[in-house]
């Protein structure tokens, strides 16, 4: 998943070399945003639903300690084995030890962004355990040996022809076949065989109910259910922030989640797992991995309210034109850009700057996370912690010096317009990033201030 030394701007630059592809990517995701809008506008009380969801999540964060204990107690009563993992490494070890105990070296996994965050697949592979992702999009990127580029639509960056090629190579579909219906049918056959032969299944968790100890997994494909109901061992992995207080709160979240994500009124399957089926083992791994640190940051703890709908990605004009991989982290887009610096401030110091702060992300967020305000705040933290680019630091010092003093500013302005040298754009040359694809503003004969002094000052 590491992008080497390339940051978001450099990776976006590469993505933008193929403009037709950028247009295609942008239009595809805009289509999803449009579906979200239509679904939201069908619910006249949409904004009060968002407000309720936001308040429920605020309550969760303020009482998380007790809810976690309550959830564990109820889940154990239901016959579920509960594990606690402080970080990604411990999460991976716990999963591995459960598999070892059952002598399992092949398993299936439905979508879980947490296991992406923990790099579980790589870890298990190193331990000679084969993982097959069953969500179609995840299976496709897995065959391509790439990480997902989107948390809801993992292979949204891939064209059907490219998927056709992958399937031709790995599943033996006819060469040149790129029809989505045909390819989906091929994947169905291939994965059905896998479902029928794996003894362990991993799923993610969308919501875990403290009151009852049950957890809810939402899919459209039915892959989480196929996996869990056929396997002898079901391991569900969740971040500790996925807790909600009461079963009835699900009414609010299930109304919001899929409308925000894809514009559907609900996912095809919203499965409530409470007890293992007779003869089956059900394990649940509760993972911290930096969440308690994020909880300690008053400006950023709100990000833990996220329900992973990806509406902020679909609406983000930057994400649509830079692609998910440009964020070089498991959760891309605006929400990823406020989550990732908490995990590694140096590695992800570029992400809060990968935004125009347009604010559309905060408006679509079903739990009302102030995403764009947090992007702004992360910028301040990252600069203060010393992760800013040194040349930028110098430019900012020059700006501070000039702009805090009317005398310096006016004189700088007069000398060939100070701005031509110091504003985001400098003179017309190849090093000038403004000028590469944009003309410079035409320089007027006088500044407003000069005009004002001549024409108005003595009015």
């Amino acid at each position, binding site marked *: 998943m590491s992008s080497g030394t390339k940051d978001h701007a450099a990776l976006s630059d590469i993505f933008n070399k193929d403009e037709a592809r950028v247009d295609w990517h942008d239009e595809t995701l805009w289509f999803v945003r449009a579906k979200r809008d239509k679904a939201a506008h069908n619910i006249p009380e949409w904004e009060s639903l968002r407000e309720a969801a936001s308040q429920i999540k*605020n*309550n969760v964060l303020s009482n998380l300690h007790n809810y976690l204990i309550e959830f564990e107690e109820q889940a154990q009563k239901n016959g579920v084995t509960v594990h606690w993992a402080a970080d990604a490494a411990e999460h991976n070890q716990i999963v591995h030890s459960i598999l070892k105990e059952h002598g399992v070296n092949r398993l299936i996994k439905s979508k879980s962004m947490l296991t992406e965050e923990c790099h579980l697949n790589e870890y298990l592979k190193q331990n000679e355990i084969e993982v097959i992702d069953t969500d179609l999009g995840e299976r496709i990127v897995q065959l391509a040996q790439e990480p997902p580029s989107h948390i809801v639509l993992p292979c949204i960056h891939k064209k059907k022809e490219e998927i056709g090629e992958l399937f031709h190579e790995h599943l033996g579909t006819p060469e040149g076949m790129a029809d989505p219906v045909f390819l989906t049918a091929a994947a169905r056959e291939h994965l059905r065989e896998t479902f029928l032969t794996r003894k362990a299944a991993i799923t993610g968790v969308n919501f875990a109910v403290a009151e009852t100890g049950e957890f809810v997994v939402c899919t459209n494909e039915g892959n989480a259910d196929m996996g869990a109901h056929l396997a002898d061992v079901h391991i569900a992995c969740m971040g500790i922030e996925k807790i909600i207080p009461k079963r009835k709160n*699900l009414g609010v979240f299930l109304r919001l989640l899929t409308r925000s994500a894809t514009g559907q009124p*609900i996912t095809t*399957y*919203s499965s409530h*797992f409470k007890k293992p089926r007779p003869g089956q083992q059900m394990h649940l791994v509760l993972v911290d991995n930096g969440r308690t640190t994020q909880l300690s940051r008053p400006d950023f703890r709100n990000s833990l309210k996220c329900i992973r709908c990806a509406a902020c990605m679909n609406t983000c004009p930057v994400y649509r034109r830079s692609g998910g991989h440009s964020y070089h982290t498991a959760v891309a887009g605006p929400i990823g850009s406020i989550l990732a610096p908490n995990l590694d401030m140096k590695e992800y110091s570029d992400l809060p700057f990968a935004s125009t702060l347009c604010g559309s992300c905060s408006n679509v967020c079903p739990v009302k996370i102030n995403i764009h305000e947090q992007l702004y705040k992360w910028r301040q933290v990252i600069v203060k912690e010393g992760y800013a680019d040194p040349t930028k630091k110098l430019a900012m010092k020059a700006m501070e010096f000039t702009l805090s003093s009317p005398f310096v500013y006016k004189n700088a302005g007069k000398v060939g317009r100070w701005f031509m040298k110091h504003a985001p754009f400098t003179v017309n040359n190849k090093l000038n990033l403004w000028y590469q694809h944009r003309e410079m503003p035409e320089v007027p004969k006088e500044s407003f201030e000069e005009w004002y002094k001549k024409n108005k000052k003595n009015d």
Partner: protein
Amino acid sequence: MTSRAQILAKVLKNQPDTRPLPADLLTVFPAADPVQAFATVLTTIGGNFVEVSDYQAIQKYVLEHFGGQRIVSTLPELVAVSEQGWEHQDPHSYANVDLAVISAHFGVAENAALWITEDLMHQRAVPFICQQLAVVLSKKEIVQTMHDAYLKIGTADYGFGSFIAGPSKTADIEQSLVLGAHGPKGMTVFVMD
């Protein structure tokens, strides 16, 4: 210190001051005709809405559309058209079921989801592994929104339950909607008075 103790201690130390839960939301804009609303949404999401007068009509429909195929059902009213004694086999053995006919506790008008718990499935795998799913629903058992749905579920105990809305689907390849990703390729809802 165990990870459990460590995580809980950090949560306790870092969680903000208590914020209250909001008042419960209720349905604000009920559909004038919930059955019609349910039917419209179900059709939109790829399901098949079939109004029937009685179980005989269902039998007739099943024979017409699925005659000669492997049919399992949890409904005693459908013994004449379905396999007997299937309930206690290994779940993998249902991989070749062509049609499963089960019933739902209730449906939800706003999203055409059907609430079905384990006791109505007999085997959890059944509604997911079959090629086609059919669900019998009483017209009286259609609630307006998910708020009403959870009011109805209340504190009911179950090992497993699912809201199922339409056939299995995916749009992972270029946002093209395809029915029948891993689960049923089609879903029929038989609605009775």
